[in-house]
């Protein structure tokens, strides 16, 4: 297993699929081909998880090849307990996106599927890259297919949203690049992430690089006040775009903190932690209030997403095991739950062509299966005990109380808001008397849609009741990360 380049295969299989798609004619054939490649890619990640050794923090499934030796650039891949989980999540959401786009996308199907598969390759590349340069290539290239997905297949205001998304992330990326170059020159002219982690940088350098990284990652997460591109992008993006955006792209920012800011810049991380903790609870509360005020279903989920990601950054900067483990688990949970919520928005929008919450009522009576499944994910997003998010939230809050009682208390107050806006949404949409929506005949969840939803349901309860396997995967890596931040930082 060790010599087999499984990571490369996982990364480039979707891109290969995109290449094959160029030769395929006919929308149906295109859809099936895309699905085959996406599912195959997902199936490959299962042996990856099974073969993953949870007892070591060392990078596994390493692949290294010289690329531009003169500049210290190499093609270097590997995963630890944190990234392997996101490789799995990305591959899982990948085929789900293909499935939900089956009927929703009916123009330029081939181009859409190509964008989707290329996107998937690049995202997987980001999580596996162990060379900063390679990482940056994947990171930047991701912008292009995402820009296309929103800008070509989006809603009425898609060009504005896509452009805004592009500008925000590009601005962040510029600063990211500057930070990378500083590390490169300070750290011995290498892009090897593992080597760069071993270096100690003077505090002044750390602080400047940290600020540059902070802005880059904060745009991605997104953290308040750099979140304003997100609702626009989500509202305009097609369903698959929203799922990728919420499920994977937002994780990139948090992953950046985990992979670069914390281990490479521990002293600066500690110095800036209070600032970030405050920003996190502001995101939790402000995002919550914004979600409470929305009449547009998709905007509500988007702002809920901002609020939920606040818990992730909160957990990361507690610098204790519970908080960071909780944050990583919450990143995974957020991918499942928010991804599913966007999926549900998409399903109902396909049927009714309205996103106004007030237009809905009594869906439980009209489309009972849809109603029950929506209830599952609403409860999950509310972090009801027995669902995935509860475990993550409990860990993050425990960690937050360990770090700072006042921050913990404010975060708890923010958590209540999620119950408020989600229950309001669910009661309005699913309960009450059935209302005719645009005079359309609604149909309940069909087999294809069910196939996309069921795996997500499984993870809601699996992580909710038995998170042990997931926590075991991330534990040792998180412990190592904490050692990196503690020993050098204090």
């Amino acid at each position, binding site marked *: 297993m060790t010599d087999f380049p499984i990571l490369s295969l996982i990364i480039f299989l979707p891109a290969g699929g995109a290449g094959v798609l160029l030769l395929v004619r006919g929308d149906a054939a295109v859809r099936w081909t895309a699905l085959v490649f996406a599912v195959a890619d997902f199936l490959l990640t299962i042996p990856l998880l099974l073969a993953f050794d949870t007892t070591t923090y060392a990078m596994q499934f390493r692949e290294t090849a010289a690329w531009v030796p003169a500049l210290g650039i190499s093609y270097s891949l590997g995963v630890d307990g944190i990234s392997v989980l996101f490789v799995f999540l990305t591959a899982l959401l990948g085929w789900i996106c293909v499935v939900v786009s089956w009927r929703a996308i009916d123009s330029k199907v081939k181009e859409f599927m190509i964008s989707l598969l290329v996107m998937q390759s690049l995202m997987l590349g980001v999580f596996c890259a162990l060379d900063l340069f390679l990482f940056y290539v994947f990171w930047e290239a991701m912008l292009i297919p995402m820009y296309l997905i929103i800008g070509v297949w989006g809603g009425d205001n898609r060009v504005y949203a896509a452009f805004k998304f592009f500008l925000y992330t590009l601005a962040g990326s510029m600063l990211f690049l500057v930070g990378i170059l500083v590390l490169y020159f300070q750290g011995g002219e290498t892009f090897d992430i593992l080597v760069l982690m071993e270096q100690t940088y003077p505090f002044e350098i750390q602080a400047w690089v940290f600020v540059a990284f902070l802005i880059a990652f904060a745009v991605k997460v997104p953290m308040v006040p750099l979140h304003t591109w997100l609702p626009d992008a989500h509202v305009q993006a097609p369903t698959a775009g929203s799922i990728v955006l919420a499920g994977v792209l937002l994780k990139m920012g948090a992953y950046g903190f985990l992979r670069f800011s914390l281990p490479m810049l521990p002293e600066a991380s500690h110095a800036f932690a209070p600032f970030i903790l405050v920003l996190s609870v502001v995101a939790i509360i402000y995002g919550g209030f914004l979600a409470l005020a929305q009449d547009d279903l998709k905007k509500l989920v988007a702002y809920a997403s901002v609020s939920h990601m606040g818990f992730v950054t909160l957990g990361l900067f507690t610098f204790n095991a519970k908080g960071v483990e909780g944050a990583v688990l919450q990143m995974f949970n957020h991918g499942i739950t928010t991804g599913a919520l966007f999926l549900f928005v998409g399903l109902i929008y396909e049927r009714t062509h309205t996103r106004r919450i007030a237009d809905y009522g009594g869906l439980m009576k009209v489309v009972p299966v849809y109603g029950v499944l929506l209830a599952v994910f609403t409860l999950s997003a509310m972090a009801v005990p027995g669902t995935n998010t509860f*475990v993550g939230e*409990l860990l993050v809050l425990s960690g937050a109380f360990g770090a700072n009682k006042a921050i913990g208390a404010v975060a708890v107050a923010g958590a209540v808001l*999620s*119950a408020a806006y989600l*229950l309001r949404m669910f*009661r309005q949409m699913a309960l009450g008397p059935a209302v005719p929506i645009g005079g359309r005949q609604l149909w309940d969840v069909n087999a294809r849609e069910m196939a996309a939803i069921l795996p997500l349901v499984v993870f809601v309860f699996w992580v909710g009741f*038995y*998170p*042990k396997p997931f*926590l075991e995967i991330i534990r040792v890596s998180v412990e190592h990360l904490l050692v990196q931040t503690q020993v050098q930082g204090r």
Partner: protein
Amino acid sequence: MEVVHSIKPILAIAVSLLAAGAILGFRDRANLRDSVSLIAAVVKFLIIISMAPIVLGGGTIEITLFEILPGVEFAFRVDALGMVFATISSMLWIAAAVYCIGYMRSLKEHAQTRFFAAFAVSLSAAVGGAFAANLFTLVIFYEVLSLVTYSLVYHRENEDSWHGSRRYLVYLVGASKTFLLAGLALTYQLTGTLDFMPSGLFDGVAASPLLLSVVYFCYLAGFAKAAIMPMHAWLPAAMVAPTPVSALLHAVAVVKMGVFCVLRVVFHVMGVGLMDDLGLGIATAYLVSFTIITASIYALTRDDLKARLAYSTISQLSYIILGAVLLTPTAIVGGVVHIAAHALSKITLFFCAGSIYCASRRKNVSELAGIGRRLPWTMAAFFIASLGMIGVPPTGGFISKWYLVLGSVEAGELVFLAVLLVSTVLNAAYFLPVTYTAFFEKEKTGPVGDGPDKIHPDDIREIPLVTIPLVVTALLSVVLGIFPDYFLTLARGIVP
């Protein structure tokens, strides 16, 4: 202490879950569906009672399924406190199952399948909570109970139930999300576990008194099902539910779940010693005393029979907590036995309210003049149950009140003795007039009340499937007064 490992706790929980599945499966065959309810209720009770000998002998029955988080398992432990709650709720499910069938059919209620299924799941949640071995497991079942009963509160699907169910959800979910989550996170942070311990989870944990008090009050407010003021407003709002729901759930399972959780926190999370050291016992005692008196006064002013019963419930729940937080062995016994005593009497009272409604469509006390002649069994049972609430021998209410009074004397807190006595007078003041009106006031002739669906007095008669269960529960409340040993033994087993 004997520890037995057995799968029985899981079976007891699973019976009603499986029944819910079967109920949904038999939705087109009403008789079969309703028999499933009844059979499941009996089986559940038998499984639970079969565990009683070990628990009465001071042992526990345990089963651990798997680890959720380090130090937190999905695990069940049947101990004395859990047994009290499980016995009473499963026993009364049998009565309620019969009653529901009579009630729902006589009113030709809609969505009966959903109703019976949700009812069955509620019972699973209640017993799951009773047997939970740690806070995590307990909270899972606590939330399941909130969510499943929501559909029962919203059962009528009209304007009133829309608003009532909203308040229900806002209070119960809001409180648990705000306070319970904080309590759990702090507890896990401070101790690294969430397991119940005989002498308290926090026993020997180094933490500032202020922080521990904060944790305690988080739990007290978070378990809003206990309806301690000011977290009580959901309970009267929940009265929009059909009466069997009010009877079993809002007099027994749901509210007792809240009280049970508070008792768990007092005994097995904080621990009697710590409660005493921090002065939390006395503080809580004052809080619940306020609830006891205020809720009784509210009850006095309510003409709607169910609303009167709801405020009475709020008041009586605080009796149980008062007994527990006085922290003396006798008071604790009084509080715990009151779980059973109140359950038997209050379910009877709600059953009576439902019986009156089924037979006559009347809801207000002022409309009941002379109804005792038409519904002699119902109103006689109402009278017996009222005596139980007031605490007159030979009802179970007398036993619990006796221990409560004794306990407050033992604790040297005569204030609470006064509270108990004043509230007894208030209980009499809002319950006895109902019986008086029903039996001794002259029946009004002509149409009564304002509803168009009111039934003419001559057509009012007892409905057997509705009346039999309430007579049985009324008799049981007397049996408890004469043979209180089962609950007394269990109650004594709680205090180390």
